[in-house]
């Protein structure tokens, strides 16, 4: 793979996406306000849950805020990259414009996953990072090199799992054509990731660990923040990330054999 070429193309993607989005200034402002209100609403909802009992599933409110912070960062990444690009796959397949993507001398998964960037999601990422810094302060977390490396690894794994899940569902479009609802269901499940996994029953924990690995997406990075993460859990998250990335990639290549293009 020519890394330099991919870097140049990605720079172009960023440039054209930002230029496209900046054509509609009001939309950016509305999205930014929505992101802020959404975060305030989520924290308010979380505080209501903690009002009567001091903790949920063994997690204090200040600790649960870390999960909210990680969720906000991941949601920001979803809104910046996954949502604008992977939703496009459905449109590409329905309208037959996937033809243009497949005929470009560049990896089709790269093209379809990174062509668009929604800058309004950046604000959500920044808000999430700010919330995480606030959590570090109120939970008196010691920032060590070990902490930084593990946080980075687990958050990167979370992003990759989320991407693979989303991409896997979007790929089914090749057969079913319309799969808007499936990605919406996935988003609904992700809302659950704002709460500690230990607050759910055993069977739900099992479901959110094996079937849809929400547990790995938010809870494990939060445990790293609090110094509660066990090393086997981090290794398991890395292994699951690898499985998800490979599977989604192979599934995409397999699905393309069944692409019949739209009629003219």
């Amino acid at each position, binding site marked *: 793979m*020519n890394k330099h070429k991919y870097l140049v193309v990605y720079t172009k993607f960023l440039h054209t996406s930002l*230029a496209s989005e900046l054509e509609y200034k009001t939309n950016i402002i509305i999205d930014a306000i929505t992101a802020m209100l959404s975060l305030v609403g989520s924290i308010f909802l979380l505080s209501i849950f903690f009002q009567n009992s001091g903790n949920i599933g063994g997690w204090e409110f200040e600790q649960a805020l870390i999960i909210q912070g990680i969720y906000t960062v991941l949601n920001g990444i979803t809104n910046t990259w996954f949502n604008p690009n992977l939703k496009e796959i459905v449109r590409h397949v329905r309208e037959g414009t996937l033809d243009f993507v497949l005929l470009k001398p560049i990896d089709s998964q790269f093209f379809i996953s990174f062509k668009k960037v929604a800058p309004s999601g950046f604000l959500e990422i920044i808000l999430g990072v700010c919330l995480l810094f606030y959590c570090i302060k109120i939970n008196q977390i010691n920032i060590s090199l070990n902490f930084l490396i593990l946080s980075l690894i687990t958050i990167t794994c979370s992003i990759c799992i989320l991407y693979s899940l989303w991409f896997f569902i979007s790929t089914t479009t090749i057969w079913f054509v319309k799969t808007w609802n499936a990605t919406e269901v996935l988003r609904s499940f992700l809302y659950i990731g704002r709460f500690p996994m230990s607050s759910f029953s055993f069977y739900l924990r099992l479901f959110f660990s094996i079937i849809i690995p929400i547990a790995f997406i938010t809870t494990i990075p939060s445990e790293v923040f609090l110094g509660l993460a066990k090393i086997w859990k981090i290794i398991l998250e890395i292994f699951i990330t690898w499985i998800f990335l490979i599977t989604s990639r192979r599934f995409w290549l397999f699905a393309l054999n069944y692409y019949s293009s739209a009629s003219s």
Partner: protein
Amino acid sequence: MINNIIEVESLSKSFNISSKLPGLRGTLKHFFKRETKSVKVIKNITFEIKEGEIIGFLGANGAGKTTILKMLCGLIVPSEGSISISGYLPYRRKEDFLKKITLIMGQKQQLIWDLPPIESFYLNASIYDIDKFEAKKRIKRLSDMLEIKNELYIPVRKLSLGQRMKSELIAALIHKPKILFLDEPTLGLDINAQRNLREFLKSYNKETNATICLTSHYMKDITSLCKRVICVHDGSISYDGELEKLLKKLSPLKEVLIVCSSEKDANKLENSGFKVKSKIKNEITLKIENKNVSSSLRTILNNYDIEDLFINEPPIDEIIEKIIVKKKYTF
């Protein structure tokens, strides 16, 4: 000797297609138990295309022209048979192969809707590994050929259909492809834009010796660009050869309008044994076989007092209609 750039042998393609009965009952049945059947849309076709040729694919809607084109450029995997394009198997979509071809679809666009076309050109240039300086040169060359300049800096959504199509062409040709697949490129364009596009394709072919495979429902596109046509009927090739030869075969008669100097001469000519289509006063229209046109005209000019004479070709659309309806042509 010119080499074959495209070789297709015993190519077939089947699709699983579901059908639905009308009404609520049909809808429910379709939802719960979808009946699909395998339909062979391309049936055992074989042909070759030489480098630099312009080939027109003719046929009715649903005959299989676009499916053939999409198999040739590697978008659809064939069910049976083989395709070789410049030595590549298209459906593998190797990077080197993709750099040699381009697909232009009249009804679909690749340009970024909210941005001026120039942004899409530079994005495509980076995808095709073309540096900025070279890209600039190519954009200038193509935009000069297509006579489009200021429009390159206006958002695509504000351009007319003709301007958009010209921009699509630049985006699709920036990497100097050797094989062009064009699926109804003049669809929806006005007569001037159609003519400009045809002229551009002619000069592009002449300049670069690129091979062009074209489908179109505008017969003028076919007659002005293609020497050779492949007629597709119900997934099979019904004719593959020179367009001229096909037209001659399908229209063996020419219509000759003769203006006689008097009505008396016209009456005399009417009864002289020629096949008469119509007669109005001193004007008479005869139907003469292609092979007898020169000898018949010589006889008429020598024996009758003629004021004027016009030879009419039958309308091309009528001939093409015959091609589309009729199943098989053997010559």
